[in-house]
């Protein structure tokens, strides 16, 4: 094991410091009174002086052997030559750009290939590369909505100074998404802006991060910026033939305009996304959720017949059994309100029974009302008033269903 270059020493110093501190805190939380092996004094015992560790963690020291020994204590290795390290990093850089592309285009197949390629890399001997791979894995998990190990995420967050260049952009991007998922929107915006600036300085396409800003603005209810950005990104995604993201833009605009009662604009973007859905078979997985959400939004503006058509289509295309009853319930409300032939309603109820056990309790409770109602059970009025009305009044967004229920009971 030879002498380490200064830039590598600085990165290893980062890893040592972060890992030691995480373990220190971890040990402290579990063994409050006991001596902590990860305190500075204890950790460097037998390897170097306390002050040397201090310097190593903050800057760098001359003696390379200290790095090797301290890494070893933490279970990490840096056992590659500088050239080997650079070669690994070059390979990783190629994968990084592929990853960003896959994220931008929501190309799940490409993501899978990248993850497979990364798992084939021998990173155990190079802890610096290892932590870069970890960063990319977390990015992948965020992208495919896979849960992220909080412990690993915390480690990555602490390793901020380990990452340079585009990796730093990805680092801030991930953190932005993390805070956004936790609805810490101000912090999310700060991180996403950092990422955006870094990506911009490396000529990374704006198509990668701007849909995250669209989502952020939606969550912040900053619809002015949301709409402006959507309009800008519509052109970009059309130019780059990025249909997945284009669908996201159209959906954001359609739902927003419907929400604020700008029907002409809402239908304009809804029709655009429908055209896209019909044209692109790869987008078919989004159909059910789009139709369901659109149908539910149409209920809010009293377009019941149209809402029924969409929700029925969503029901037919929904691949998840646990969701079926959730879709059937609004369908039954609408069928009742629209006075659709009772035979058809009863058929839907029979179908609902098949999914009853897989649904959550609230959906089951609502479904029961229709079971009672259409089996001529006299109890249905009492059940509606005592069980369903309070349930619907829990959430102001369910106001139309509450009105529909009252109409069914008393009109």
């Amino acid at each position, binding site marked *: 094991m030879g002498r380490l270059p200064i830039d590598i020493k600085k990165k290893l110093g980062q890893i040592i410091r972060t890992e030691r501190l995480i373990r220190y805190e971890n040990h402290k939380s579990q063994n409050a009174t006991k001596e902590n092996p990860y305190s500075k004094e204890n950790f460097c015992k037998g390897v170097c002086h306390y002050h040397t560790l201090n310097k190593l963690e903050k800057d760098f020291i001359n003696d390379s052997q200290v790095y090797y020994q301290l890494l070893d204590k933490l279970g990490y290795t840096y056992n590659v030559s500088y050239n080997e390290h650079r070669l690994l990093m070059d390979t990783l850089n190629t994968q990084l750009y592929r990853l960003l592309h896959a994220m931008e285009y929501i190309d799940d197949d490409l993501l899978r290939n990248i993850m497979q390629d990364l798992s084939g890399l021998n990173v155990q001997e190079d802890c610096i590369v290892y932590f870069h791979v970890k960063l990319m894995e977390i990015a992948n998990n965020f992208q495919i909505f896979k849960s992220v190990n909080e412990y690993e995420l915390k480690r990555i967050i602490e390793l901020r100074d380990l990452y340079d260049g585009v990796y730093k952009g990805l680092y801030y991007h991930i953190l932005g998404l993390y805070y956004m998922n936790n609805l810490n929107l101000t912090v999310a915006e700060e991180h996403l802006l950092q990422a955006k600036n870094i990506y911009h300085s490396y000529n990374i396409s704006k198509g990668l991060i701007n849909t995250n800003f669209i989502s952020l603005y939606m969550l*912040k*209810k*900053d*619809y*002015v910026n949301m709409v402006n950005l959507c309009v800008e990104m519509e052109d970009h995604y059309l130019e780059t033939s990025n249909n997945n993201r284009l669908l996201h833009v159209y959906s954001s605009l359609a739902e927003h*305009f419907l*929400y*604020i*009662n*700008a029907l002409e*604009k809402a239908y304009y973007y809804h029709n655009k996304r429908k055209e896209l859905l019909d044209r692109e078979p790869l987008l078919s997985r989004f159909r059910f959720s789009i139709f369901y959400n659109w149908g539910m939004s149409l209920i*809010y*503006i*009293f377009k019941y017949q149209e809402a029924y058509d969409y929700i029925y289509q969503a029901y037919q295309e929904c691949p998840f059994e646990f969701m079926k009853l959730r879709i059937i319930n609004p369908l039954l409300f609408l069928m009742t309100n629209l006075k659709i032939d009772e035979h058809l309603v009863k058929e839907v109820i029979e179908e609902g029974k098949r999914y009853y056990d897989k649904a959550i309790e609230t959906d089951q409770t609502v479904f029961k009302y229709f079971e009672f109602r259409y089996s001529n059970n006299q109890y249905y009025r009492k059940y509606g*008033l005592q069980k369903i*009305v309070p349930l619907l*009044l829990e959430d*102001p967004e369910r*106001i*139309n269903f*509450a*009105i529909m229920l*009252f109409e069914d*009971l*008393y*009109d």
Partner: protein
Amino acid sequence: MEIKCYSLSVPIKQRLGKLIKSLRQYYYDDARKENGQNDNPYTKINFCKDICHYHTLTKLENSCVREDYIYHQLLKRLGLRFQIREEVHEANMLVVRKLAFQYLDALEYYESKYYEEIENKLIEVNNDCLASLHLEALIFSYDAFYKHQFDKKLIVKFEKIIDVFEEIYQGIIYLTIGFSFHRKMELTTAEKYYLKAIEIFQTFKLNIGLIYFPLGNLYIEMKNYYDALQICNILEEYYIKTSNRNRLLIIYLCLIDYYLFINSLELAQKYTEEVETLLKPEDNYYMWILNCKWGEYELRHYRESQALDYFKKAHNVCQNRDRKLMIINRILMCLSLLKAPTEVLNKYLNEGYHYYLYANDLEKQIFTYFINKINNRPQYYKYVHEIIFPQIKNKIKYHVMTLFFYRDMYIR
């Protein structure tokens, strides 16, 4: 009073002919409404009797006739006078035009200026029916915007004879008619008139602060948040730049409505603070609107107790008698849902009677519901289903109200 036969030029004859025609038709319709098909003094034949031939009147109304005296006689029959020389009339019209622009300038800032000047001038020009009519239109507009007084007859009259007015006055009349419908919550009709006014004002290149001010609030009330927001964002910037506090307050109230609608409490709060910073103690008008908006928001979220607090505050400061019943109705809604004792409900019911006449039809009907319900008259069910529901059902604007009636009638 004796009529002098001032000589009239062709252009003046044409304007007077148009005025005679429009007014005669207006009075004809009015008389027909009152007396049906019975003898109408404003048919062409009856109207010109003893003054000129029927065909002469037709010619006078559509172009002009040579004899000056016919104009003066016919005007007299309509209760009008044009007893001045043309140079004086032209001078009058110059002042009339100037007053229109001054009035609009004040209206942009919602400053109640020029009323006395208009009134004084009106006395001065009492021999000039054309100038008088224009100034009457300004008074009509002033009363509507600053006193919230709406003369239904004048609305019909001015609309019928709109062609007689100079273009800028046509804009003012349309704007005022739009405003009167807006106050009555007949929003689609209000929009139609506002747009007519805007079309005219645009040709005069008036400030955007004047041209668009009615639309922001109207679109908010129509729940057309897309157009409302576009207008409000532009006007917010403009009114800040022009230090137009009164109009800026209205824009802020519109934005508060929008942000409450989309549940963006942070921004709604931000604009509420902006309003509170700008408010002066005497600004009751803005204060009750602000409290009503927050009250509606709380009511929408089924927090009746909080909503009640806001509506009570609104009720305490509101001095607009045409809005009082609306606020009282909202208070009664909250109290009713909170199952308040009858004596508390009665207190507001008794107060509501004072404002009943000034409210719009829907608010009157809602109030009638409370009268019936609180007095245990069982017809209130039928009343809601047959009278109120047909007006409010399936309208986003009345979501909460619809649900209220069901909850109030059927949840014990």
